[in-house]
């Protein structure tokens, strides 16, 4: 490989002009509570999986809202579906359903 003296930078800007919001739309159509999140972080804090890895439901859905789809598919697999987050969410976001929907989208959408 030719060394140009620099490497490609990871994307550091959310370019909302080019963001792929199709998954966000798809999810919100199937579960309206997808859009009810106020990013309080309760889900991520109580998360059973979050204790062992960097999984955060809040971050996952947030990144989908910013168009980072491929990351969402790999992240969502870390969820154990234990349901604690459902019991703590102050906005009644149906978290488990959204994880299942993301997993289904993984089979439908071609990332």
């Amino acid at each position, binding site marked *: 490989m030719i060394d140009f003296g620099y490497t490609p930078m990871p994307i550091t800007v959310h370019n909302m002009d080019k963001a792929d919001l199709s998954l966000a739309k798809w999810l919100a159509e199937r579960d309206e509570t997808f859009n009810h999140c106020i990013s309080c972080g309760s889900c991520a804090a109580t998360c*059973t999986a979050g204790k062992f890895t960097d999984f955060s439901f809040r971050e996952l859905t947030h990144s989908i809202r910013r168009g980072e789809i491929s990351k969402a598919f790999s992240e969502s697999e870390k969820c154990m579906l234990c*349901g604690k987050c459902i019991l703590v969410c102050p906005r009644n976001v*149906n978290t488990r359903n959204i994880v299942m929907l993301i*997993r289904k989208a993984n089979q439908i959408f071609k990332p």
Partner: protein
Amino acid sequence: MRYPTFTLPFTIGLSFVLLYILVIWTIWIVRLSRREQKIVWKRLFTLRTIKAIWESFREGLLHHNIYKKNAVLGFMHMGLAFGWFMLIVLGNFEARLYPHGVINPPYYPIFFEFFRHDLTPLHEYEEIFTFLMDFFLLLVMTSIGLAFFKRFRSRALGMRRTTKHILIDRVAITALWFIFPLRLFAESVTAGLYNTGHFFTNFLGQWVIYNLPLDYLYYPAWWAYSISLGVFFIALPFSRYMHIPTEILLIFLRKYGVKEKNNHSTFTTIELNACSRCGICIDACQLSTTLNISDTQPAYFLRDLRYSKPNERLRETCMLCMRCLDACPVGIEVTQIRKNERNEFPLFGTSNYDYLSEHKYPKAKVAYFAGCMGHLTPSVIKSTLALFDEAGVDYTFIDKDGSICCGRPLQQNGQVDAAKQLIDKNNTIINETNADVLVTSCPICASEFKHNYRLNMPVLHHSQFLNDLAKQHKLTFKNTGEKIIYHDPCELSRGLGITKEPRELLKNSFILEENKKNTGEKSLCCGGSLGITNTSLPQKMAIASDAVFQLYDGKTNLLATACPMCKKTLAMAQETVKVLDIAEVMLNNLEPKKKKVQSQKEPAEAEVLS
């Protein structure tokens, strides 16, 4: 005698249905797994066969299970099945007793009155046969009347909802409903002309329809009866009425020990065919009673699975609370079948939980496991451990710093491979604690540990363990004389059959206010179920609030339960009733023992303690 053409529809229908059943039973039996066939052979000539025959008679004809749940409904099913059976049996006897009638074509006893107008050769049996035939026809007609009434006014028969049927079922049910009125009509016409009946058909023939042109109606009436039988028999294998022959086979196979496995099998096909879509499961389901979702219950799910594949909504809209399983009069393993169907849709990969490798639980004598949900109900943990301390239990709170999920939620939602990763890891680290016993507060975990783990220690729910401590007098409680309601968690009652221990424990301090309808294995689901993902929180709360008010009778505002999830859900849904865990209420009524121990202070005991 010229061949009676009118019996053709019946003869064709009967031949078809018998041949069909013979072929399909053969196919099914051949397709059972080697192991299943082996156990069937091994047990064929045992008492099990006798029991199966008795059960076939009791359930297939008398419909005893339905009767226990709803007497009118039971009578309806019994009247139709048993009445018809008796008509066939008696008709055969009658035809055989008739001189020169020992060898008969199958249509002969069915249309006996058509062929023989002079029944005097039956001698002393004439009276009894004509009476019994009329009696059972009347019984069947009563049932048909009830069934007809139920279709339009199901509530009158104690059913909130009745199943909505597909075309083939409607064809079959229409034919079935016509069979007996047409038989009655044909026999009444005959009785009107030849006095062949008894109190029922003679009365109708000679007093009610006597001024109709009976001579002209005679042939058409028997034709119509034969056609309705023929249509019913042709439709039977493709309709819900396939349950009639299949239920018998199912009863036998089940008696021999054949069960649902972790995936669909030939036995599943048999179970699917054994569902009569009676709709009893619809009323048992809280999705229907509370949320008015009345099109996803087993009656519909099994139906769609029998003909093709249930859609996603049908597959997923179920709390897996197992109330339908308890209600099903045929005993079809509906919950397992639904889980197996879900298993065919894996959504998670196989390396998603690699991050779990480093986890370890501390070593322990009694390992206490609060479970994920337990960490959201600190009072459950605190009370349980306080009671352990009081009883001098040597325990370690193994998931104090959190745990791996037991895997049940994934498993219930069809993600078996993903669940297996959790189960394997958890199984190893729990076994490494080398505990004598594992006590958990969460019935969901307890159920998973019992059913899908290979632990080297027994698993107890904390209500069992605390009850044992109370029985051993390691814990003593004040008798308050107060009333209390107990809510059975699904996984504890139906899942593990633990209904007595929590009650025994509570009775140390309380008088139990029992609502017989929704107690023990018939308890209501709190709605928090992890077996479903597509209900919204408000829907869950509606189920929870209904569940509380089904138990609440105004005599006490105190409700105990034994599941962190139930506790949270029931407490969130309403503010009338105070919801506490069984450990909490018992801790509140603990008779402090420390004084007693001090006053008794026996040296021997002190040595043991040190």
